[in-house]
C-alpha cells in the first residue's frame, strides 16, 4: 500500500541518488579529476570535502569520485550509464541538520544532487559538454539492514514521488513515473523515467 508509514525508514540515512547524463557523454571521466580537486580547494560546496579518487580504469565503475565526509559525489559509469552519483553517508553538516523524516531526507538528497549537477554543467573546464537529465533518476537504499520488501518499496516510491513534485521534477503536468528495478538480492532501487 503506497504511502503507508514505515517509521524505521525515517532513520535511514544512507541513500544513493544518481542523475543520469543527458544524451551521449562527450566527456571523459578523467576530466573530472581537476574539477573535483578545485571544488575542494575553493570549497565550492558547503560541506567537508576531503579527497578525489580516480577509478576511471575500471569497467563500468564509479568513475571519478569526490569524497566528502557526509557524501561521496561521483561521475559514475556503472551499467555503462554515465551520471552524477550522490551517495550520502552521514548528516553532520550544517545544512543537513534537523532532517528527521524520509520526506525531508529525499528532498535534501535531490537538492544536493541537483546542486552538484548545476555546478558541473556550469564548469568552465568542461565547457558544457556534459548535461544531466533531472527526470532520469535512480534512488537506491544503501543499507542492507533495511528491508527491501514490496511494502518498503511502495512506501519509498510514494515519498520519492512527493519529493520529486516538490523539486519540480514532473512529466508535463503529471508526476514522473517511479518504478522498482533490479534483482531482489540487490539493494532496493527505484528509477524514474
Amino acid at each position, binding site marked *: 500500500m503506497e504511502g503507508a508509514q514505515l517509521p524505521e525508514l525515517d532513520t535511514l540515512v544512507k541513500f544513493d541518488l544518481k542523475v543520469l547524463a543527458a544524451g551521449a557523454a562527450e566527456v571523459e571521466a578523467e576530466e573530472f579529476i581537476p574539477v573535483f*580537486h578545485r571544488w575542494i580547494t575553493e570549497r565550492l560546496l558547503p560541506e567537508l570535502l576531503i579527497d578525489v579518487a580516480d*577509478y576511471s*580504469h*575500471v569497467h*563500468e*565503475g564509479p568513475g571519478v569520485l569526490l569524497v566528502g*565526509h557526509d557524501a561521496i559525489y561521483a561521475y559514475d559509469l556503472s551499467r555503462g550509464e554515465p551520471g552524477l552519483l550522490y551517495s550520502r553517508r552521514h548528516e553532520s553538516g550544517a545544512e543537513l541538520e534537523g532532517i528527521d523524516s524520509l520526506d525531508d531526507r529525499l528532498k535534501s538528497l535531490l537538492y544536493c544532487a541537483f546542486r552538484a549537477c548545476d555546478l558541473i554543467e556550469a564548469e568552465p573546464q568542461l565547457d558544457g559538454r556534459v548535461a544531466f537529465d533531472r527526470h532520469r533518476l535512480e534512488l537506491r537504499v544503501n543499507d542492507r*539492514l533495511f528491508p527491501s520488501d514490496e511494502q518498503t518499496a511502495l512506501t519509498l516510491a510514494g515519498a520519492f514521488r512527493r519529493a520529486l513534485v516538490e523539486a519540480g521534477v514532473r512529466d508535463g503536468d503529471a508526476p514522473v513515473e517511479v518504478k522498482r528495478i533490479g534483482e531482489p538480492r540487490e539493494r532496493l532501487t527505484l528509477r524514474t523515467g
Partner: protein
Amino acid sequence: MSQSTVDSTATWKERLEGRVPPHLDEEIDIFETQIAQKRQGKIDDKVFAETRLRRGVYGQRYDNGQRHDGTASQALEYPCGDLTKGPNTVWDAPGMLRIKIPFGAMNGEQMEVLADLAEEYSDGIAHVTTRQDIQLHFIHIDDTPDIMRRLAAVGITTQEACGNSVRNVTACPMAGVCRDEPFDVSPYAHALTYFLLGHKDAQDFGRKFKIAFSGCEQHACGLANMHDLGVVAQVRSTSNGTTNTERGFRVYVGGGLGAVPHQAKVLRKFVREDELLPLAQAVCRVFGRLGEKRNRARARVKFLVAKLGIEEFTRLVDEELAILPPDDRWSAYLGDLSVTDEEPTRPAATLSPGSRPEGFGEWLGSNVQRQRQPGYVAAAINLPLGDLTSTQLRALADTTRRYNGGHVRNTVEQNILLRNISEADLPALYAELHEQGLGEPGASSLVDVTACPGTDTCKLGISASRGLAGELRKRIATSIRTTGVLADEAVKDLRIKVSGCFNSCGQHHVADIGFYGISRKSDGRTIPHFQVILGGQWTENAGSYGLAVVAVPAKRIPEAVERIAGLFVTEREKGESFQSFIARIGKARVRQLLDDLTKLPTYLEDRTLYSDWGDPREYTIGDLGVGECAGEVVTAVEFGLSAAEREVFQGLLELDRGAADAAAEKAYAAMLQAARALITTENIDIGTAPEEIVGEFRTRFYDTELFFDPYAGAKFANYLFRVHGDAQTDSGEEAHRRIEEAQLFIEAAHACNQRISEIQARVA
C-alpha cells in the same frame, strides 16, 4: 541466509546472531568497547592506534586534518573536533580496512559479502593487494565493528591484518593445481594462519611479520625469498631407505624488501610437516624476545637475523623449540589436509575446435595455464591496478559457481585466479568475463603493472604510483595494439612494479623494471620523481633484487620505459634474459640512455613536470604523514593493561545496569588481567588460571616490592589478594568499591611498568 535478504531492521549484531564464530564475536565486541572507551577518553591514543591496526583498521591520507592543495595547506574541519583514533589521526577521517584473505582463497559467499561492504561503507571498489588481501578505502571507524561482523559471518577476519603482528599468510595461487609442486601447500598455510592468529607468542613484536608459502623453488608465485618467513614445499625419501617419501619444507627466514632489502637465509633445509608449526612458533618467540622495539626502522626480523647471523639465530630458535610447551595443534590438522581442497564441479574436457568469441585467442594465450589435473586450467583475471567493482565481484561469484563451485584465489600480482576450469568451458567463461569487463588479456605480462596505493591514499606516499601504473598500462596497451616497441615478444613477459615510496609495498625490488617514488627540488619547487630500479628477479621466489640506476621525473617515466625496452629489443643477445642484459651493458649505459630525461626545465618552461600523474595540483610533499605500516610499538604489557582497563569499563556498564555480581566479577578479572600483563615482562608462558597469576604476582612483584607504590606501599597489591580470596558479592556498594580498587590497581600496574622500563633503560 544471505546477508542481503533481510526483512526487518535491527543491528548487524542482532541480525547475525549465531552466525559469527564465538571467538570472533567476542573479539569484535571487545573492539566495539574500545571504540566506546576511546570516545570517552579512557584509552591512550597510542594503544588505541595499535589496537585498531591489529584489527586491520588503517589510516589514510589526510587523516591528520590537513590537505595541501598545491599552494597552501588547508584544515579539514572534521565534525568530531579533537577526537582522535591515534596520534595525529582524526576520528572522522576516512581510513582503509585491510581484510585478510589467507593464501588469497575466497568463495562465492565471501565475494558477495565483500561486494556488499564495498557498496555500503566504501567507494564501491574492492582492491586486491600485493599480499593477497582485499582492501576497502574511505571507511569510517564507527562502521568497522559491523563490517567485521559481516565478514566474520562468512569466515573472514581482519584480525592482525595490520600492526606489529603476523600479517596475512600468503601462498602460491596455483597451490594444488600447479604442475611443478610436489604437493599442495594450501592446508599448511591455512593451519599456520589460524595457529598464529592471536597466539600469545606473536603479540609482542617490534614490527610486522610476513609469511609466504611456495610450492616450488623456481617460480615467483610465493615470493618466499622476500618474506620474514618463507616456506617452500619439499619431499624427501624417508630415512628408513624405502622408496617412500615424506612431505616437508625448506624454511627461509629474514627476507624482506622495504627500504633495505634482504634476501632470506635458509633456517632449515628440511622440516617435516609436523615440525612446521612449532618451528614458526619458536621463530616468533625469538623475534618477540630479541627483535628491536625502539628503532622501528630496524625492527623487522631481517635485521635481527643480520645482526645475530643465521647460525646464532638458528641456535636460539633451537633453544626455544626445546622448551616449547607441547601443543596438540602442531599436528592435529594433519589428520585432515582436505580442508582447503577445491574440487572441480565440471567434467574434465579438452578445448574442442569451433567458433570462438572475439579476443579469445589472445586471452587464452596470456591468461590461461594448464593444471596438473588433465583437462583443467587456471584462468587469470587481469585487474587494472588490482581494482574491481562490487558489481564485478558479485558477478564473478556467480560465474565461479557455474564453472568451479565458486572459488577464486587472489594473486600477489593483484589479479584473481579461477582454478579447476574445464578446458571445454573456456570460450563460455571468457564470454562471461568479457561481458563483466573482466576479460582483459595480458595477465602477468608487461601490461599487468602492479602498484601500491601511493599518494592516492597512503600517508607515506611520495609519488603517485597508481597514477603512473595506470598511465603505463594505457601506453603499453596502445603500443601493443599499434605494434610499437612494447609489443615485441622479447619484452612481453617483463614485470613492471611501482611503489609510491622506498618502502616497497609495490615490490619494485623484484621487478624487471621497478620504480619507487622520490622528490627532487628544482627552480625553488618540488618535482615528483621515480627512482628507476633494474635487474630484479621475479622468478625463483624473487631470486634477486634490483638496484637503483637513476631518478627520472614522474611524467617522463613512460618515455624511460620505452627507451629501456627498446634497447633490450635491439641489443639483446640470443636467449639473453633481461637481468643478464642489464648486467652485461651496465647501469652506466642505462643512465646515459636516460640522461636527458633527468634534466629539469624551469617551472615557466614546462609546468607539467611539476605535478604528478592523475593529480593536477602543483606537486608538494606537504601531505606526507606518519605512516602506520610499522604500527605503534605497544608492548604486550601495555596491551594487557589496556585489556584490564576495558574489563573495568565493562564492569562500570554492569554496575549501571544494576548487575552487582557481574560488575564485581569484571573488577576481579581486570585486576588479574593487569597482574598477568606485568608478569609477562618476566615470564611469557604465564597461564590464565587465577591461582597461577596471583602466585606469580606475589613472588615477582609483591615479595620483591617492585609493585609497591612509593607512598602507599603494598596497598594496591592487597586489593588483588583480598578480592582473590573472596570474589563473589551481590552488594552494589561492594561492587562499586571493587571497581574503584580495580582502577587503582591498574594505575599502580602502569606505574610499576613505568618504573621497570626506566630501570631497563638505565641498564641499557
